[in-house]
């Protein structure tokens, strides 16, 4: 037990010390140099505000609301983006028909959709989810499509001679698993974009809750310690989501690629 503790301390020691130094430096700068809570709240202020929102329970509703928005966006982007990418990657005619539409819509920044999100959905969770969806769908479509385009011909041929002759089976048993690394990479990019869109959508008031909303709300009250706290929460949550996704993908979904590249 003790040995293990020493080992982890030794392994993580530098990381912890580095973090501690930053916190001390931050606290010192805020307390002794800036001396103004509006410009730079100290570490201690942020910790106090954290306790405040934990005590009032706001933290839970804010996080859950944001996750709900994110969830709506990601599920919609999956349900529409992946099948669309599959159809475009497998059937040439579908690609020819759909590609120009996508190329026109894609360069529109997702945040430009915010007015329509409000007009179509009102100030609802769906509206914020829609903005997330717009941010996520294009990387997913394009990476699914690319993954399907790059399915090695020999795998399809091998499947055919083994009796896998229907298009549906070839997609399900060959193309989809083969394209999965590319699809997963697309999802990771999409999650990064979606997370940014989420915060922006909530800040613009597309919904009446969530971390972005709370951040903007506190800004109006000039409570910069809370603003900073919500910034850190957003970053932390984004990190956790990405790590969890990566863990799931590496351990479960793409175990077969382990060792091919990294």
């Amino acid at each position, binding site marked *: 037990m003790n040995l293990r503790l020493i080992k982890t301390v030794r392994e993580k020691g530098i990381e912890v010390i580095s973090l501690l130094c930053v916190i001390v430096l931050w606290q010192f700068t805020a307390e002794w140099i800036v001396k103004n809570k509006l410009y730079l709240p100290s570490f201690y202020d942020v910790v106090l505000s954290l306790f405040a929102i934990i005590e009032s329970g706001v933290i839970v509703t804010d996080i859950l609301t944001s996750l709900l928005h994110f969830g709506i966006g990601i599920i919609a982007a999956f349900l529409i983006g992946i099948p669309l990418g599959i159809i475009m990657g497998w059937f040439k005619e579908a690609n020819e028909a759909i590609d120009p539409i996508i190329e026109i819509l894609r360069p529109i920044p997702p945040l430009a959709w915010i007015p329509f999100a409000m007009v179509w959905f009102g100030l609802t969770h769906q509206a914020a989810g829609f903005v997330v969806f717009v941010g996520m769908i294009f990387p997913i479509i394009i990476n699914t499509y690319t993954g399907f385009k790059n399915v090695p011909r020999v795998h399809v041929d091998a499947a055919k001679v*083994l009796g896998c*002759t229907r298009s549906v089976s070839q997609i399900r048993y060959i193309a989809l698993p083969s394209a999965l690394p590319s699809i997963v990479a697309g999802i990771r990019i999409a999650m990064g974009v979606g997370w940014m869109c989420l915060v922006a959508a909530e800040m613009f008031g597309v919904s009446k809750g969530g971390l972005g909303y709370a951040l903007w709300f506190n800004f109006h009250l000039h409570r910069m310690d809370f603003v900073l706290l919500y910034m850190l929460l957003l970053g932390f949550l984004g990190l956790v989501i990405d790590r969890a996704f990566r863990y799931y993908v590496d351990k479960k979904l793409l175990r077969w690629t382990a060792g091919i590249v990294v």
Partner: protein
Amino acid sequence: MGRVSVKNVSRTFSKKDDESETQALENINFNVEDGEFVCLLGPSGCGKTTLLRIVAGLETHTSGEITLNGAPITGPDPKRGMVFQQYSLFPWRTVIDNITFGLEMQGVGKGEARKQVEKYLDLVGLEQFKNSYPHELSGGMQQRAAIARALANEPEVLLMDEPFGALDAQTRNILQDELLKIWEQKHVTFLFVTHSVDEAVFLSDRIVVMTSRPGRVKEIINVELPRPRSRTSPEANLLRDKVLKLLEQERFTR
């Protein structure tokens, strides 16, 4: 039963952008008897792989007729197994799941399929590696698994497209020996494409030597060497010499 008959088969490739046409195969005629081991040998680009893919049902022929046991070949069918030159195992499936793929496609349950393919794992000596992913195997092991995967469907004909072309010389020799053992045990008809004269002489009952493009049958050679064969016997050398000379002519007529 696996008797392949190739009658007057031709294949022309036409390019889409211009009107030019390339004739890959011209009037190919030969039969492969049930249980026979036949090699298709020819200079590179002679269309031997195209011919094999047509027999597999992966390509179409422009004219002529190909039949298996009298029935014309129209598309891919598990009755005609195929092993490719490139590593063709599905990298997302373990070795055993690769081998069960054909059975799964026929609707056999996964558990049942795994039981049924045990003997093929054994046959190619991959029992230990059944739960490994393809990228964890050497090239030789991957091709062994690919052979087991093709055999698991119990095909009547096994089509092999230079399956040992990417392997080093020693592994190739070992796999050739193993392949002959499998052939003796399983009573499968083999149609084997190769560009190696040594391989053709060592393996086959008959060698179909093809001309350079457009591919035609130049000569069909009966290999009457007793089995098990020696790679370096004087008779084998004589035959190798004869085949090499045939191929050399092709080089000069081009």
